[in-house]
């Protein structure tokens, strides 16, 4: 019994044109919710595919629950939700789920029982209507997402891997997903998900790893990461007019190292040693109406921007969720 659900050591994966993952070492503690953060093209999907043994690393080793990732027994303990989702369009919902269950070694009446349970739980089966008997393409997008989600969890996996799980989810399904992640954690399951939505990651994850250009930038528990990169930041919220004056102040590099401008809300990273009170005075003097001025820990988003830089944004970062 090892303490890690996933143990990746010095893994490299090269393709003809580029190196997708370079010398990556990553440890995901058992029972944790782990966020794999990075811009598109950073190597998240390649990493996930190697964990799932869809592709093999060129060098390095991956262990899942202490066993090599190519151990056929391991796959039955993994549940995977790929990034862009779809299912066999012409197939009946129950049959799709039965098929996915069989691939994970759940068969016969046991599979049927679990399918029923899940369909009822996600209200795809009500006394009025049993969507389990419908074909996939008769379902709404949201319902299809639910079905796929059931397919991921039907075999009660110990490790659940979700690739960009929130993309394309409607708010109700997104909330259902968050609830499920929390519940999985309570039951001692390990959840790893990749995302570029830092807000979700910050709220849900115990630990995170930021990767960019195939390499690990930093990792650790969310608390550790924040403390380590813990220059105090200032959260500033303004009301009404007076924005022009603010722009000048924020460009003053004797005080402000960088500022993330969300129009009415700013997250400001101070120059080391600068006095936040001086900043507050300047803002008030400029005539702006301050609604909130607070010393905060940097958000993951800020840390991400700081570590990955503008290039990450260009490569597909969409910032706050």
């Amino acid at each position: 019994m090892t303490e890690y659900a996933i143990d990746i050591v010095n893994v490299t994966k090269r393709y003809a044109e580029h190196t997708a993952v370079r010398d990556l070492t990553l440890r995901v503690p058992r029972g944790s919710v782990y966020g794999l953060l990075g811009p598109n093209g950073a190597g998240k999907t390649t990493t996930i595919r190697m964990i799932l043994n869809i592709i093999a690393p060129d060098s390095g080793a991956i262990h899942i629950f202490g066993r090599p990732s190519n151990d056929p027994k391991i796959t039955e303990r993994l549940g995977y939700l790929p990034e862009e989702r779809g299912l066999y369009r012409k197939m009946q919902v129950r049959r799709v789920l039965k098929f996915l269950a069989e691939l994970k070694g759940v068969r016969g009446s046991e599979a049927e029982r679990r399918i029923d349970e899940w369909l009822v739980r996600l209200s795809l089966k009500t006394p009025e209507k049993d969507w389990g008997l419908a074909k996939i393409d008769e379902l709404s997008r949201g319902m299809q997402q639910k079905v796929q989600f059931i397919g991921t969890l039907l075999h009660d996996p110990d490790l659940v891997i979700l690739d960009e799980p929130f993309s394309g989810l409607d708010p109700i399904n997104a909330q259902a997903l968050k609830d499920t992640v929390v519940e999985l954690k309570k039951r001692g399951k390990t959840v790893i998900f990749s995302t570029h939505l830092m807000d979700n990651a910050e709220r849900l994850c115990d630990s995170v790893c930021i990767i960019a250009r195939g390499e690990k930038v930093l990792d650790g528990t969310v608390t550790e990461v924040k403390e380590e990169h813990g220059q105090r930041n200032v959260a500033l919220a303004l009301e009404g007019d007076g924005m022009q004056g603010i722009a000048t102040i924020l460009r003053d590099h004797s005080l402000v190292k960088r500022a993330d401008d969300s129009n009415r809300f700013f997250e400001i990273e101070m120059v080391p040693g600068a006095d936040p009170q001086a900043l507050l005075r300047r803002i008030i003097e400029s005539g702006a109406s301050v609604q909130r001025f607070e010393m905060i820990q940097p958000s993951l988003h800020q840390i991400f921007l700081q570590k990955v830089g503008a290039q990450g944004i260009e490569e597909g970062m969409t910032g706050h969720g």
Partner: protein
Amino acid sequence: MAKLWAIIKREYLERVRSKWFLIATFFGPLFFSAIIIVPAWLASRSKATSDIYNTTILDATGNGFGRRLALNIAGDTTNPSRIPHVAVVAPSELTSAESTATRDVMQKKRTGYIVVNQQTLAGEAARYAGRNATSIADMAQLKSAIRQTILAQRLEKVGLDDAQMKAITFIPLEFSTERITERGRAGSGMASVLFGFAIGFLLYMSIVIYGQTIMSGVLEEKTTRVAEVVMSSVPTDTLLAGKVIGVGAVGLTQQIIWIGTTYVLLKLREPIMAKFGAPTVSFSLPDISLAAGVLFLLFFLLGFIFYSSLYAAVGSSVNSESEARQAATPLLVMIVSTGVFIQPVLLNPTGRTAQVLSLVPISSPIIMPIRMAVTGVPPLELAASLGFLAIGCVAALWLASRIYRVGLLMYGKRPTMKEMARWISYSR
């Protein structure tokens, strides 16, 4: 093993349950029976049809010639429905009688009408007008009936009695025809050529249809990302094998149903054709032994594996149906160019071309069964053909599995041939 089974089961059941499968399976035998029965039926059209019974005879002879002619046309006088209607008219009323008769034809009450008069009695002229005036067989029949009636009347004048007359004029001549071409009698072995064609066509269609079925199946799994979920549970080779076996089993099921039903339909063709009012034409079905039947299915299976694995590779390397159609062109060219050779091989099944084509794996799954249907193939050639085809299958599967496992995970632009060649060299 259980997972392979799950994949096979899904591929098989989902396809067998589809409407397309039911329709194709049902219409297939009708189609194949038609290929064989229609030529035979067309041949039967060279005999006169029942149209000649439904005519009017406008008799302006004044001596009962019309009545006699009617009996002669009917032939079988015990069947009143076969006796044409006779209208005795005076020569002066003939014009108005003809317009009445024309109207009857136009209103489809009658097929046509015959005008007989003094000129007819003299053996000089008779007229016919009707919808079937272009039917050579019908016209010949009517003409011969008129001649016979004239002859009978003349004999009567000479003083022969009824029995003598019948004895002299009754000539039940059966005139069979056979075409001779530069290759000899075309009629001989016609049935087996048709059979060979049916087999070739069946294999050709099945390989194209099922190859493309696999291709779009693979493409669907790729574009919906189901492939990734499945690949996280089973090795890619298992997935590919499951698809090929599952879809192959669907094809085999369909072939067995097709061949079985066609066989039964052809066995029952005489009662069926009689139902349609077509006289039965006797032609014998080629004798196909059980061993030959098994060999046909073997060729189908191997040919299917060869092409479907390549189709799967194509499906995995592209991102949309339209790209797939383009990328599959080389495969289609391989199959269609084989199809082009079906006819030459049928005509010369023991020639050099036929021999070579039945050894090359690209064409052998279609060409060899055709040769087997129309001629005897030496066992050594048969074994060589199967051997090469089996090797071809292994090569195609190897190639396909390597492209497949990389292609399924590659999105974006369609790969070039060079890139695909590099995929083959990738580890996993």
